[in-house]
């Protein structure tokens, strides 16, 4: 059989035009059409030893679902994905594919890899549009009760895995809406909240109970739960925002990314005054950091009507930790990137409002522990930047509420709960943990991977 000719380029993603999209909060990437999806799927070489599968943290059988697509068997395709991933519509949109499945796709050696994430999204959206959401068989009730702390990707994954095995599962969520960072952090224009709500409804349809407004550690403690539940899973995320610890950070106009994004997403500040949570409309905004959170904050600022938005990042473009696609989107939308720049001081007026930022230029020196070249300040390079808002997006660590109220729970230096990498077991009996609360801020799919392992370990332990 003659080798199939290689089609070197990915099908581009249809998107809203930059000039248009910076004036609305609608999703930027519109999704593949049927034709584009088929063309892209046809590029796959259906490798005998598919490297892409190894690149996916939950091991989706990628060539199999792509094969289904080529045969126009979309329901077969989504079924294949759902064997491993209950949040396909989310992961297809937000996974850092260029670091995972697509990074190792053989096509990527010489050409562009298959757009695996986009195909995954296509199938998930197709299923939602078809209205016929397939539900796997639910095992007979086994009478065992499991409490889950947090309704982010980790909590949702453990809940659905255990519900399918017949467990009586209840999720406890501190906020008034479920979804974790998917709901309060990642903006509507990148991950529509309707998609997240659909996933939450799906988990509820498996019989999982959801208690909102319930702060574990405050409303009830993990200790109290231990009397009522056979197992507890902590998926509380990494919600505590870091600040830079430079002068002026408590000036008005200085926000943590969590505040900025929560006001906009969870509290629908962009619909003020229809929704009551107000949001400052600044004209010159600086965002500190270079990850997904920084890109989201910068692009949100543009959509709220800022004239100029800067990403202030102390390293260079190649070190940006954000998903490449979002960096490109931000560039197209006109976000200005100030690389090798370090904010050192925030300056305000007499009424306590931010007016200027003092910054230093940096240059790249020797590699540091992370293997990236360490930025070092250039002497005498101070300069001022006029702004009326600054958003700090330099990282988060786990919230101490649970650790503080759970004696005997081992906690690491940055407040992260210590859990076995393979099982998610913590230092407390019958208490498991996974996701950002263990690793610190990471990714949706890695939180789900850890959650899956914990669900398996909970099942093994409780079936003994």
């Amino acid at each position, binding site marked *: 059989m003659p080798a199939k000719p290689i089609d070197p380029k990915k099908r581009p993603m249809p998107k809203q035009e930059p000039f248009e999209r910076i004036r609305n909060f609608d999703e930027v990437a519109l999704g593949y059409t049927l034709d584009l999806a088929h063309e892209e799927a046809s590029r796959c070489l259906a490798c005998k030893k598919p490297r892409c599968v190894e690149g996916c943290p939950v091991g989706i059988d990628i060539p199999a679902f792509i094969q289904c697509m080529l045969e126009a068997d979309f329901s077969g395709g989504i079924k294949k994905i759902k064997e491993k991933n209950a949040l396909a519509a989310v992961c297809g949109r937000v996974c850092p594919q260029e670091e995972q499945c697509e990074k190792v796709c053989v096509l990527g050696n010489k050409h562009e890899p298959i757009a695996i994430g986009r195909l995954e999204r296509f199938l998930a959206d197709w299923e939602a549009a078809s209205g016929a959401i397939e539900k796997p068989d639910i095992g007979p009730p086994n009478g065992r009760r499991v409490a889950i702390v947090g309704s982010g990707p980790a909590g949702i994954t453990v809940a659905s895995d255990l519900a399918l095995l017949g467990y009586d599962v209840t999720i406890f969520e501190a906020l008034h809406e479920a979804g974790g960072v998917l709901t309060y952090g990642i903006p509507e224009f990148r991950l529509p909240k309707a998609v997240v709500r659909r996933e939450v409804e799906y988990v509820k349809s498996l019989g999982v109970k959801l208690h909102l407004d319930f702060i574990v550690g405050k*409303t*009830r403690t993990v200790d109290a739960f231990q009397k009522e539940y056979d197992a507890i899973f902590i998926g509380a995320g990494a*919600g505590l925002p870091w*600040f830079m610890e430079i002068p002026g950070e408590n000036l008005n106009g200085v926000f943590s990314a*969590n505040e900025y994004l929560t006001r906009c997403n969870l509290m629908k500040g962009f619909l003020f005054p229809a929704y009551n949570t107000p949001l400052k409309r600044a004209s010159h905004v600086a965002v500190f950091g270079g990850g997904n959170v920084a890109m989201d904050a910068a692009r949100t600022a543009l959509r709220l009507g800022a004239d100029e938005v800067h990403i202030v990042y102390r390293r260079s473009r190649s070190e940006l930790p954000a998903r490449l696609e979002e960096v490109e989107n931000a560039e197209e939308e006109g976000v200005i990137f100030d690389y090798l720049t370090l904010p050192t001081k925030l300056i305000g007026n007499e*009424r306590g409002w931010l007016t200027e930022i003092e910054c230093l230029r940096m240059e790249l020196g020797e590699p540091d522990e992370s293997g990236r070249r360490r930025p070092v300040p250039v002497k005498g390079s101070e300069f001022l930047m006029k702004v009326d808002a600054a958003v700090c997006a330099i990282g988060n660590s786990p*919230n101490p509420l649970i650790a503080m109220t759970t004696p005997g729970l081992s906690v690491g230096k940055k407040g992260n709960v210590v859990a076995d990498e393979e099982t998610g077991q913590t230092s407390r009996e019958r208490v498991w943990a996974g996701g950002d609360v263990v690793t610190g801020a990471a990714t949706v799919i890695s939180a789900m991977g850890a959650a899956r392992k914990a669900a398996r370990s909970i099942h093994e332990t409780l079936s003994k």
Partner: protein
Amino acid sequence: MYRIVERRMIVPNLHEFTVEAPQVTMAVRPGNFVILRADETGERVPLSVADWDPEAGTVTSVFLQVGGSTAKLARLKAGDSIPTYAGPLGKEAEISNFGTVLCIGGCYGIGSIYPVARALHEAGNTVYTLLEGRSRYLLYWQEKFRPISTRVIELTRDGSAGYKGHISRLPEILTLEKIKPDRIIVNGCTFLMMRTSGVTRELGVKTIVNMNPIMIDGTGMCGVCRLTVAGKTKFACVDGPDFDGHEVDWEEFLKRRETYNVEEVQPLRRSGCASHY
């Protein structure tokens, strides 16, 4: 949904507000607060817990109608429901036997300091209560404080009840009443807490204040509630809301409270109180 058991105006603009929330009564302690939303499009509003009834599973707060959200709350009737009622939040007030404690409440703080005073009384302290307001008709709950206080003292700006004047008269009042407090606790508007901390610094009496910055989540996630205490940034919702009033950076705190003034207060100010902060 959480059912409203009662909402009634107890003095002009101040409402007593009781909600059915058994999950909160199981864990609540003096000094805690709750976060609620008045309706599905509402912002998250923090209110201190002023009392609770574990048997009925109800929680009571006292709120001052200031802006949009509290105006919505003021329109609720018994039997209505609200979509969000989360708590208890914040650290509990420090309760132990300090000796003699003076509890000062003004505005909604008369309500929120009540469970603190009661717990201090039960812990064996000699408790004095001082109620502060512009005029006699703004003071309330005297009958609740009497059984747990050695004396209930009143201070009104117009002199219509008790002492006449401002909290700046505190040192003089303490002398006249022969009270030597080992600790002072103040709840209420920012100015009352700030001024009290100012005069007690000279008296050298440890003074605990119950801070009320702008909040969103109340769980340490957003950082909007941050303030500077003893030179360090703290999150009021998880590190407080009680702090040592002599260590708070009041100037910064007042400025941060004004962040959304343009958006919220100007168009809506209804409170008869010139400076509800």
